């Protein structure tokens, strides 16, 4: 179906329904028939936009995703992407830094930038009545940031400060050491903030080059939720983004290989509570076993109060406030990570519980009841991800980046429902090799056996 609106050509290629969960305990309130319809729009300038319209809320939320992240920083310029993003609102277009940030703040426009290993995300949220100004500021930031020496040096000293402070933060130390050990020389081993040396070496020119190479139309995906017509959204997006380079130049990265042999390391620090990072290989987002692994993790250490690790470590024994695990499907390989903090004299007990739960999962998989409960939670909670425009715009970019398809919202719960006990057990046996478990403890743990690298 295609429709022509004035001289805009807008293709509405897909429609999607946000399904309601199966009813277990019917109440007075009927399940609503509301649909979150995802439209694929191509703007006059040729930019593809995935759009969800919600006429009743006077807010527009936009998320831009640019493929490639901190792992693509040049070798001796680690932290470049993060540094450049910090300067986008430090003077752009006709405004200096203070004027720019005041223009945002006075209208309640939220403009945020984020970089992870594989992705740069830029989000804008504005009241619809301020949308012209908001998109014009977005355009300034992306296409005409000043990178003046004063601002560059000020942000440089702020970043150096962050780097110095993180060297004393047990959580960060544990995480960074875990990454460095696991990835060695692979670009994922680099710190997103960069290092003291790399940050000191970065010039204004490097920052401008990064923007030119990275923020380009060919590695961009756009997700929008808002209350204005599709052609208006297309026009606003074009006004902000046309003028960016057509082609990006982002370095290529190879897949990584997770080390065969795991280790347990201690970084001594005088703390009352030790901070522990642990992890195993995970899988990529497009792996056919992804959903089985997702359910397996939910049961083992995932997001609800029912997980086995939560029950064994917190509920039954009171050994931790927080313990959890999660899949991190990076583009060039997946990780399965977890964190726990516990008093020094309980670290070895907590780690042996974690090992024994991993072992149990490998040996016995999950019970029918556990699988059913996990499915009920995961399918029932899915609509909770769409109650704000900001969240919707982020999911729309995620769907594009991971090639989940425009019908993903409708199909996703079926992908969960389809997973069997056997699938979960298979993926557990395949993924959870406790010989590969890599543990970093920061603190002063008692009686903990270590194995160095």
């Amino acid at each position: 179906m295609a429709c022509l609106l004035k001289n805009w050509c807008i293709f509405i290629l897909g429609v999607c329904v946000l399904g309601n969960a199966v009813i277990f305990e019917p109440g007075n309130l009927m399940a609503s028939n509301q649909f979150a319809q995802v439209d694929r729009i191509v703007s006059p300038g040729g930019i593809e936009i995935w759009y969800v319209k919600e006429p009743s809320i006077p807010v527009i939320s936009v998320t831009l995703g640019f493929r490639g992240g901190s792992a693509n920083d040049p070798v001796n310029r680690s932290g470049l992407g993060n540094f450049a993003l910090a300067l986008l609102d430090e003077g752009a277009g006709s405004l200096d830094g203070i004027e720019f940030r005041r223009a945002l703040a006075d209208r309640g426009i939220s403009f945020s930038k984020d970089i992870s290993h594989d992705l740069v995300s830029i989000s804008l949220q504005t009241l619809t009545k301020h949308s012209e100004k908001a998109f014009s500021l977005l355009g300034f930031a992306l296409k005409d940031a000043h990178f003046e020496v004063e601002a560059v040096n000020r942000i440089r000293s702020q970043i150096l400060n962050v780097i110095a402070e993180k060297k004393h933060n047990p959580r960060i130390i544990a995480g960074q050491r875990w990454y460095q050990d696991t990835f060695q020389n692979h670009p994922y081993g680099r710190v997103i903030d960069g290092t003291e040396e790399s940050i000191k070496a970065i010039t204004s020119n490097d920052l401008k080059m990064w923007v030119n190479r990275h923020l380009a139309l060919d590695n961009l995906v756009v997700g929008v939720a808002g209350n204005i017509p599709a052609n208006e959204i297309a026009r606003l997006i074009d006004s902000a983004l046309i003028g960016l380079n057509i082609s990006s130049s982002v370095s290529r990265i190879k897949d990584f290989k997770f080390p065969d042999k795991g280790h347990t390391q201690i970084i001594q620090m005088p703390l009352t509570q030790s901070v522990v990072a642990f992890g195993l290989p995970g899988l990529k987002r497009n792996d056919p076993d992804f959903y089985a692994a997702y359910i397996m993790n939910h049961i083992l250490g995932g997001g609800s109060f029912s997980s086995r690790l939560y029950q064994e470590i917190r509920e039954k024994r009171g050994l931790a406030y927080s313990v959890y695990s999660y899949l991190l499907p990076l583009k060039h390989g997946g990780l399965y990570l977890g964190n726990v903090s516990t008093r020094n004299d309980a670290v070895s007990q907590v780690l042996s519980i974690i090992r024994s739960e991993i072992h149990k999962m490998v040996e016995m998989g999950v019970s029918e009841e556990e699988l059913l409960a996990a499915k009920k939670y995961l399918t029932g909670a899915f609509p909770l991800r769409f109650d704000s425009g900001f969240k919707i715009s982020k999911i729309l970019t995620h769907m594009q980046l991971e090639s989940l398809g425009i019908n993903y919202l409708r199909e996703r719960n079926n992908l969960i429902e389809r997973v069997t006990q056997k699938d979960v057990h298979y993926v557990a046996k395949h993924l959870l090799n406790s010989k590969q478990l890599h543990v970093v403890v920061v603190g002063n743990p008692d009686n903990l056996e270590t194995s160095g690298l």
Partner: protein
Amino acid sequence: MKVFFKQVQKENYPYNTYFADCLKKLFITAFLFAALTLIHFISNPLKANIFNSQYFVLENGMQVVAIPNHRAPVVTHMLWYKVGSADDPIGKSGLAHFVEHLMFKGTDKLPSGEFSRIVAENGGQENAFTSWDYTAYFQRVARDRLEVVMKLEAGRMRGLVVNEQEAGTEKGVLLEERSTRTDNQPAALLSEQMGSAQFLRHPYGTPIIGWRHEIENLSHEDAIKFYKKFYSPANAVLIVSGDITIKELRPLAEKYYGAISPLEFSTPIRPIEPPHRSARKVSLIHERVVNPSITRSYLAAGASDLNDALALGLFAEILGGASTGRLYKSLVEKNTLATWAGTSYQSDTKDYGRFFIYCEALSGVRILELEIALDMVIEELLLKGPSKEEVSSAKARLQTGIYLALDNPYAAAQIFGRALSLGLTVNDIETWPDRVEAITRTQIISTARKTLRKEGSVTGYLLPSKEDE
């Protein structure tokens, strides 16, 4: 490290926002039938502008608000109790927070663990938090599961059952939580000391999480006694935000919460601060601090004094709004003394608030040099007052901020729940932009002068162990 596909939320559970004190309480007893006469006057739903929220009061005294937002077939169901750590008995700090944790155990109808199991089975996400003046519980669920969570939440208002062993295990969790939030964090340790120095008499000076030695001695009986006293309909506010109307909510609220008997309820009277006559200074030296920083806190108006609170909110924007205020401009951009400088006005406490100023020295800058520069900026602004543009710009920010909550039912529920728990009304929120607009430049100046007095202040210095001053 980031999780793109799925955000791990566990760390928020159950959390507390700030730190507070506990002193001897006096109580007056107000019998519920006295309150009921008042309730009948206001039980007609009143409709207003920004959120189109609707309000009524159940016969047992419980307040109810519906905030419609039909974007997704989802609701946030929140129950707020007007009790917090400022109600902890003397010597038993952390008790309100302990009760919050225990609320996730069993009830007279459900064995331990069933509550969370049922919420999860219905695709719900839940959590809870404790502050000085309130404790709140919430679930986010599909709208057709609202009734399930209402039944559960109503069931634990009076029916909590916890055995001694569970309570003992949970104390271990509390101590680990304290280690994570406070003992492992130099800035949090300083903040705790500053709180104690700020309040001479009022319980807001004791940490919400509690002092370690007092958490260790909390008993199962303490918790049950506290729970029975404070968890009752007339002390609670129900907020349902999202795909809901008052017409749908009222029968459900009456069925589940309305069935709970009205109880005699005692409102604690808290002590009043004596005059503050001397500026206090505290410092904490820690080997994990990199650059020295200054945190200044002034005793200020609480949320119940709405006009002063709004004036201070505006003044905070002008002096230290995020990377736009005078402090940032002067200390970070112009004089390059600090890596960061800003302010915040803490208004989520009803009796007193606090006005905070924070700045961190750039490497090599002496802390006293920074403090002199900081005081010059403050004094100049207090003396000459802000420009008209600064005032209108600050107003615009405070006004538009609230509109963005229209996009987020959870944020909207938070705003209303907090306001009602602190004694404000639905109307105060619905007419927020007008209330902000009505504050004059003169009011901002006089409230700021009254508040930013050295005698009412505590200055905290967080210093690296190598600092040579």
